[in-house]
């Protein structure tokens, strides 16, 4: 009884590590997954009789490898080329020092699952499946897509890894920054889908954000690069506001109106120390800068204490590091806070004139808010309507509707 509970705990804690090593040894995702299941099945029958081995992880890897050789042998009756493969695995009897290589294997697995030669959707599905151990059904329900679609994405990604020769290794230093970017993108995408669902009625999906945080922590522990720390900090500082982000009815609450006593100070402290560490390295990038902006917000006890000067400065650096119309829009809003709505409105006007924010409802929502503050209520109304026409997300739409209704009340009083 106790042994089986021990095996369950071991599966929870170690199965991804054992899998990562088996993938390296066997060079095939599916074979490694079968071997992993075989190894745990063997443990369930053998350990209660023989006792728990001294090094359970090494035992599982070794058992998995032999089970894989057996499987190949059985299949070799139909396909002679597999006999050769089985023989090769068998002859590689020298087992590498597992404790040394096992963390490297986990990192290898992350880089392979997030390889830029795979589509973004495939990267997300494969990483959640292989690294985070989510089932295909769990991934499908988290992203509101059909199970067969997810299954197909995973099957195709594995086939490309195998047949196109996508390597199972940590990139060399010269390519690390670019390849790490591809990994961080996957982590952030998962986090954002949990925090700002792109569709559906619920405003947040905590479980996906939790997975992204776990993944971000794992990645940073394996590879303490400044931007990996920056992304983890950004996620922690965003997550810290979760309790204050919606009211009792589940409606969104703007940053200015949030009850800051609900912000999670433990997460904020952890995020802040990570941001400082990344900025000190002088090798930081967009994630660290976004985290630094979130940290400035977190420092303000009340909204009016916010250091907008510093936030605008950080946006200036961010805009140079990663130019994008959305960042320019956020900068314009920060300028409005520092210099008044008129200044911000002028900047947003310029951005809209460039046409790149045509389909971005938040640009119209920001314009509406600034017009309202300037008392230009007709313009505000039009902008809210334009925002509504572009916004698909249920809760955000309700929010815009309420703002529009409040405007009519305000106009009635005027």
């Amino acid at each position, binding site marked *: 009884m106790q042994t089986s509970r021990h095996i369950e705990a071991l599966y929870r804690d170690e199965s991804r590590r054992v899998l990562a090593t088996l993938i390296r040894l066997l060079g095939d995702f599916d074979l490694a997954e079968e071997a992993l299941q075989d190894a745990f099945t063997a443990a369930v029958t053998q350990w209660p009789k023989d006792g728990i081995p001294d090094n359970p992880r090494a035992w599982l890897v070794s058992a998995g490898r032999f089970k894989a050789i057996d499987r190949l042998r059985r299949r070799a009756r139909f*396909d002679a080329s597999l006999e050769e493969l089985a023989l090769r695995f068998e002859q590689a009897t020298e087992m590498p020092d597992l404790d040394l290589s096992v963390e490297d294997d986990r990192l290898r697995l992350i880089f392979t699952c997030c390889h830029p*030669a795979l589509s973004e959707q495939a990267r997300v599905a494969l990483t959640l499946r292989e690294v985070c151990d989510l089932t295909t059904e769990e991934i499908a329900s988290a992203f509101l897509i059909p199970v067969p679609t997810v299954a197909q994405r995973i099957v195709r990604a594995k086939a490309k890894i195998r047949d*196109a*020769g*996508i*390597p199972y290794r940590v990139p060399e230093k010269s*390519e690390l920054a670019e390849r790490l970017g591809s990994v961080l993108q996957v982590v952030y995408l998962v986090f954002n889908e949990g925090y700002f669902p792109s569709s559906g009625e619920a405003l947040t999906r905590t479980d996906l954000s939790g997975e992204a945080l776990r993944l971000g922590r794992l990645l940073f522990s394996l590879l303490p690069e400044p931007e990996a720390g920056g992304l983890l900090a950004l996620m922690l500082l965003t997550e810290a506001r979760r309790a204050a982000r919606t009211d009792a009815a589940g409606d969104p609450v703007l940053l200015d109106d949030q009850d800051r006593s609900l912000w999670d100070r433990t997460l904020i402290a952890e995020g802040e120390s990570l941001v400082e560490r990344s900025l000190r390295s002088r090798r930081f990038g967009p994630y660290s800068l976004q985290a630094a902006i979130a940290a400035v917000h977190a420092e303000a006890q009340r909204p009016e204490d916010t250091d907008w000067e510093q936030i605008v400065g950080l946006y200036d650096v961010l805009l140079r590091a990663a130019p994008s119309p959305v960042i320019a829009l956020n900068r314009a809003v920060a300028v409005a806070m520092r210099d008044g709505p008129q200044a911000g409105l002028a900047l947003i006007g310029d951005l809209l004139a460039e046409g790149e924010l045509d389909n971005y409802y938040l640009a119209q929502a920001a314009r509406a808010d600034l017009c309202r503050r300037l008392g230009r209520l007709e313009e505000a109304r039009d902008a809210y309507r334009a925002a509504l026409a572009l916004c698909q997300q249920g809760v955000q739409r309700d929010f815009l509707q309420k703002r529009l209704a409040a405007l009519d009340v305000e106009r009635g009083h005027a």
Partner: protein
Amino acid sequence: MDYICLVYVDENRLASLPRGERDTLLARTCDYRRDLLAEQHYQWGRWLPSARLATTLRRRDGGLRLRDGAAIRGEEQLGLVVLLRARDLDQALTLAAGLPLVELGCVEVRPLSEQAPWVRQGDT
């Protein structure tokens, strides 16, 4: 593994380049080929003259259907084919990215197989 690099380029754009630039592009491609050859990555390669010289045919219902032009139409057409041997996809992509024509057009990198791909399905 062997990878085929299919380099697509807009031949009109290539033709409109100043003479000097075209010569440089050619010289750089030849230099690069020599580098690849020295490191034993280069297996084989050929230029493809204008896609206007292509003929596409299909055999259907016992008859031959012939058509002037390439199988896939588009502004960018196959202009260079290079067969590379590389350790893995990462190395193949790095080598393919070094082809000077990629600055102008694009390169599709695909693994080659000796076995017909449909034989593999359902073998387990």
